């Protein structure tokens, strides 16, 4: 009788507070900015703390497989906090996408991901939409050959999940050639991966659906990361414009600015509702989850870019500097917009899902 709850529960609020505290202590913007100059020393320790010490890597893994048996709603709250700090950790790629690919697999890998003992990445370009074409890797006698570009989470991964011939194989990252690329968003640095006939272990036999479901879930939960990012941009900009004075008054008191910020606030609230619904339908196994995931991406990914662009513009001079963190958010927002399907790709997908046919 009641409709899907779109508010945060107390358990989620507590989880958020725990994650926020750790990120406040250990994910300073100055250290994050250093990623752009090649200093990745932050990454391993931060991921270990989140994955193993807080146990977040196992959120989506059932308890009997060594996980926390939580739902997409809790994972969404973690992602909001990671987006809020543009944290450079492979939560989305390992604890969400790779984990969900393995969800119905046997073998020890799922439990190892859950405990944080191992970190994995699915070999697809970050730009792959859930309904898009998957890269071609050939398999012969259990040996994998092919090149996949622009993979997120591969640098941090010790295990790579390779989709080939309808199945998913795991390979040790050390056996592949992983080449980091200079990325638009260095807080989620991409890599190209080459497989030269290396041995893979079959982990999911009939895997096409599992991979697609994992990408749908990844897109749905990416929206929560984008909400966290957008909310930071809004709050930081509002705070700054209450303090910044020009013409003898606070810049945030000018109506042209107030109306832009009001529109942005409306957008952030709307994005929150879309992302919560996507997470809630995912958590409930609701048949609307596929539509909800594309609705969330079609709306939230553009909104997050708008929020970051407004943050730069309304901070003005200081927003254009390397010193101010706004650029970290702009780069993450723009890369996130392309990640897992652009807004346009998701709208095109919705046309079929909700019966608004393309003109003939």
């Amino acid at each position, binding site marked *: 009788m009641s*409709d899907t709850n*779109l508010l945060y529960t107390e358990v989620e609020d507590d989880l958020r507070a725990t994650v926020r505290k750790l990120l406040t202590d250990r994910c300073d913007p100055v250290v994050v900015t250093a990623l752009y100059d090649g200093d990745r020393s932050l990454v391993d320790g931060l991921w270990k703390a989140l994955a193993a010490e807080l146990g977040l890597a196992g959120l989506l893994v059932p308890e009997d497989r060594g996980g926390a048996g939580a739902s997409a709603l809790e994972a969404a709250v973690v992602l909001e906090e990671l987006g809020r700090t543009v944290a450079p950790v492979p939560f989305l790629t390992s604890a969400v996408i790779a984990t969900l690919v393995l969800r119905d697999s046997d073998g020890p890998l799922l439990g190892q991901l859950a405990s944080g003992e191992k970190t994995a990445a699915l070999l697809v370009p970050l730009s792959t939409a859930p309904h898009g074409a998957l890269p071609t890797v050939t398999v012969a006698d259990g040996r994998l050959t092919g090149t996949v570009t622009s993979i997120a989470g591969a640098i941090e991964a010790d295990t790579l999940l390779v989709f080939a011939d309808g199945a998913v194989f795991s390979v040790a990252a050390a056996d592949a050639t992983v080449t980091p690329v200079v990325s638009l968003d260095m807080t989620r640095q991409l890599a190209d991966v080459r497989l030269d006939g290396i041995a893979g272990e079959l982990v999911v036999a009939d895997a096409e659906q599992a991979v697609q479901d994992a990408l749908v879930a990844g897109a749905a939960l990416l929206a929560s990361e984008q909400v966290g990012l957008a909310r930071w941009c809004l709050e930081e900009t509002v705070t700054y414009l209450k303090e910044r004075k020009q013409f003898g008054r606070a810049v*945030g008191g000018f109506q042209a600015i*107030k109306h832009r910020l*009001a529109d942005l606030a409306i957008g952030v*609230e709307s994005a929150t509702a879309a992302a919560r*619904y996507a997470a809630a339908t995912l958590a409930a196994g609701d048949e609307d989850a596929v539509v909800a995931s594309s609705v969330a991406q079609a709306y939230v990914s553009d909104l997050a870019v708008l929020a970051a662009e407004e943050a730069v513009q309304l901070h003005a001079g200081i927003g254009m500097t390397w010193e101010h963190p706004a650029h970290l958010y702009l780069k993450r927002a723009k890369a996130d917009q392309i990640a897992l399907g652009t807004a346009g790709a998701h709208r095109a997908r919705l*046309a079929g899902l909700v019966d*608004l046919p393309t003109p003939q």
Partner: protein
Amino acid sequence: MTIDEQGLRRRIEEFLAAHDPATTERLEFLRARYNAGLAWVHFPEGHGGLGLPQAWQPAVDARFEAAGAPDNNKKANGIGLGMAAPTILRFGTEEQKQRFLRPLWTGEEIWCQLFSEPGAGSDLAALGTRAVREAASGDWIVNGQKVWTSGAHLAQFAILVARTDPDLPKHQGITYFLADMTDPGVDVRPLRQITGEAEFNEVFLTDVRVPDIQRLGEVGQGWAVANATLSNERVAIGGSPVRENGMIGVVAKAWRDHPELRTPELHDRLLRLWVEAEVSRLTGQRVRQKLALGQPGAEGAALKVTFARIAQELSGLELELRGEQSLRYSDWAMVRPDHVDFTGRDAGYRYLRAKGNSIEGGTSEILRNIMAERVLGLPSEPRVDKDVPWKDLAK
């Protein structure tokens, strides 16, 4: 004792078993439904509700509708149900609640809103309609002019704000009343709009008598009471409970019905708006879930700004989709409709009527100010008239 969802379902079934919609007289059924607490379940017991979450109401209504229960004329009484009722519930005396809420809900008494004036639009607090206390009777005598009053020609009662103390600054000298629209001093004249019809009215008030027991809230408290009404209005307007309700449903249907009219450019715009309408639906749902825990604040302002923009863009899109057909208009004749239907009539009407969505109930510009100041805490607009007695303001 709190009732769970199962308990509520059971109550509905018991009620329907005892009051067969097919054989029970309409008004008798509606009054009994109110008395059983199944009218608006989020209202308190004794006033048509059971103190349950407002989010449960759509399912209750759906069950009654499926059972063939009579309608409470809600299309004609949007102001009463959406604005007057929650305000009376919050600020009314027990006697006022007993007197007004049931006939309001059953549709026996239709309500209208006497707020805006020719000289007080966005600046509603500058209103000049005067209410003067008559010493002998204690009644209030009201004189002035109101405007943009939907349904005034059908209404038995009005929520009215009037100035009771012109010596105080504008926000402080206002009092809120429940006025009888059948008083001989009430003169309702149709106000023709850009659609051709006269859904709104001008209302001239000449020595209209309002007994003091029909004052809602304290003397001078009218601004706070009116703000509660307007917050309820904005929440009532923004966001619909089911997917593809409202304008998006109309335009999506036109798209499905007319493959020959589809173009890639319109397709892209339609998909964008479909997504926005769906997200707006979810945002409304989330706001209502928040409000179940408290009174509406500025959240409704955000919903209404979005609702207006989407309705306007969609209705414009529909005209472009229909092409040549859109160059024709159904009928410019001045009629006085008995209810407002944003998605009614033809595409041309919808386009023109939607222009009102960003004006009625607070312009989108004023609502953005409200959002910026009350939600984001940004500095207020300069208010040079804030501390000046109303009588000394430039008019």
